[in-house]
């Protein structure tokens, strides 16, 4: 049997805060199969970003097991395309140069990196901006560029931490559809953090719902909507039922 893209088994993590230990994650189990789009929802401050840091190899768990492509032993940094909440484009690099940042880290020759970045920008409708600096772009465009940077660094496994959280509703919807298109074209496995239940339903194959801190997996919900998805599906009965159900679950967890 092929090993899953990501396997998280019984992962726990605590931080020291002053003299007392603060438990963030309690025995998390999670799995992302190859090509799957998984969403992760939880109340704010529940430790979703900590889980991401663990998966991206920026921190190590106290206990439990993390494996990308079934590899438990080696370092996880560089094995996933990690996209933080802010686009974090480098203002001194053009859009094209920002997209190929990950290839610079890998010492890919500039000419080849440039070609790949150009091809990707072309394919996803951003070629016109290739030579511009990030300062001239709108918020939605910057997020798209950041996503392409993530994809070019690691096209097979994307860790997206609330990428569209700061965008207005309309821009967000257009970015979501764009992401779905991208996901299908590059056949990536995606783990997507969000606050937004509707966003999770629109995008994901499966949704993991986390509890308030310390975070446990409360529920795993299958999203049985046909693909390719459209915003209209959110207004149909199955999506609405799921939305109500998940909202109720999350509201109970919201402490404030």
């Amino acid at each position, binding site marked *: 049997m092929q090993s899953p893209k990501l396997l998280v088994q019984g992962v726990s993590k605590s931080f020291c805060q002053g003299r007392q230990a603060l438990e963030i994650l309690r025995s998390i189990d999670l799995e992302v199969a190859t090509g799957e789009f998984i969403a992760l929802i939880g109340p704010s401050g529940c430790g979703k970003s900590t889980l991401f840091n663990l998966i*991206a190899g*920026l921190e190590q768990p106290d206990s439990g097991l993390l494996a990308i492509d079934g590899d438990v032993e080696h370092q996880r940094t560089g094995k*996933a395309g*990690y996209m933080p909440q802010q686009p*974090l484009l480098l203002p001194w690099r053009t859009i094209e140069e920002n997209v190929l940042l990950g290839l610079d880290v890998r010492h890919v020759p500039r000419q080849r990196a440039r070609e790949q970045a150009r091809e990707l920008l072309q394919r996803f409708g951003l070629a016109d901006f290739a030579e511009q*600096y990030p*300062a001239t772009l709108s918020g939605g465009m910057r997020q798209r560029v950041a996503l392409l940077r993530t994809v070019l*660094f690691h096209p097979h496994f994307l860790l997206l931490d609330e990428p569209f959280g700061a965008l207005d509703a309309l821009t967000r919807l257009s970015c979501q559809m764009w992401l779905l298109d991208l996901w299908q074209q590059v056949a990536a496995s995606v783990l997507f953090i969000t606050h937004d239940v509707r966003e999770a339903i629109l995008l994901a194959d499966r949704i993991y719902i986390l509890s308030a801190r310390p975070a446990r997996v409360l529920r795993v919900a299958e999203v049985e909507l046909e693909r390719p998805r459209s915003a209209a599906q959110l207004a149909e009965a199955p999506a609405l039922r799921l939305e109500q159900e998940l909202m109720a679950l999350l509201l109970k967890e919201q402490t404030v």
Partner: protein
Amino acid sequence: MKLRWLANYGPAFVLALALAAIWEVAAQANLNLAQSLPSPSAVVQAFVLNWVAIYDNTIPTLMETVLGLLIATVLGLLLAIVLDLSFWTRRAIYPWLIISQTIPIVALAPLMLIWFGFTITPKIVVVMLYCFFPIAVATADGLASAEPDLLKLLKSMGASRWQTLWLVRLPGALPSFFSGLRIAATYSVTGAIAGEFVGAEHGLGIYMLTATNSHALPVVFAAIVMTALLSLALFGLVNVMEHLTLPWYHASRADLLPGRQPRH
């Protein structure tokens, strides 16, 4: 473009002209004053009459300044990177950097003369001592101000410490570096003059000193004007270099700078 230039520099120019006019009238009216404070026209006259001598003495001063500034830039950058290497290097070096600036550099100049003789070297060292500090401190601050999330992103890509420095932190510190370099450039000519005051064969500093000793006050002022022009030229050169190196920085900030007139 031309209008903008006029709007930027016109007011200062008009003010200078007005002050010079008042000075001129006062000096013409009162001859006693003219003996201790030469009128602008006398200074201009001295400048023209002594142009060859002033020019001959400007060249060595300029050499000392530029060489000292170059060495200070390299040294300042290296120091900034070393400061930034770890918590401990910063703790060990930073206090000494500050203490080095409490020493009156002018007092060191005679020592330099003893150590290095009547050559160009002691002047270069004095310029360097004046200039490395603003460059080192500004660049170190720039390096320290890198966005933590950006560093996290680079780490997630598996970037090494040097890659992070080269790809993210150094380019991000360049605007700060240029701020430091601008300050250093304005100090640098003063440093060269101070170095020459102690003892030199050529240079604007020693030229001024000789002119003062022979009570040729207009000539002293003419040399001071030349010094100021030199400083302004270096300052301008740094600005031009910054614009060429950081086109993105000015493009993204053009509308944010305070005190700039709206474009309507």
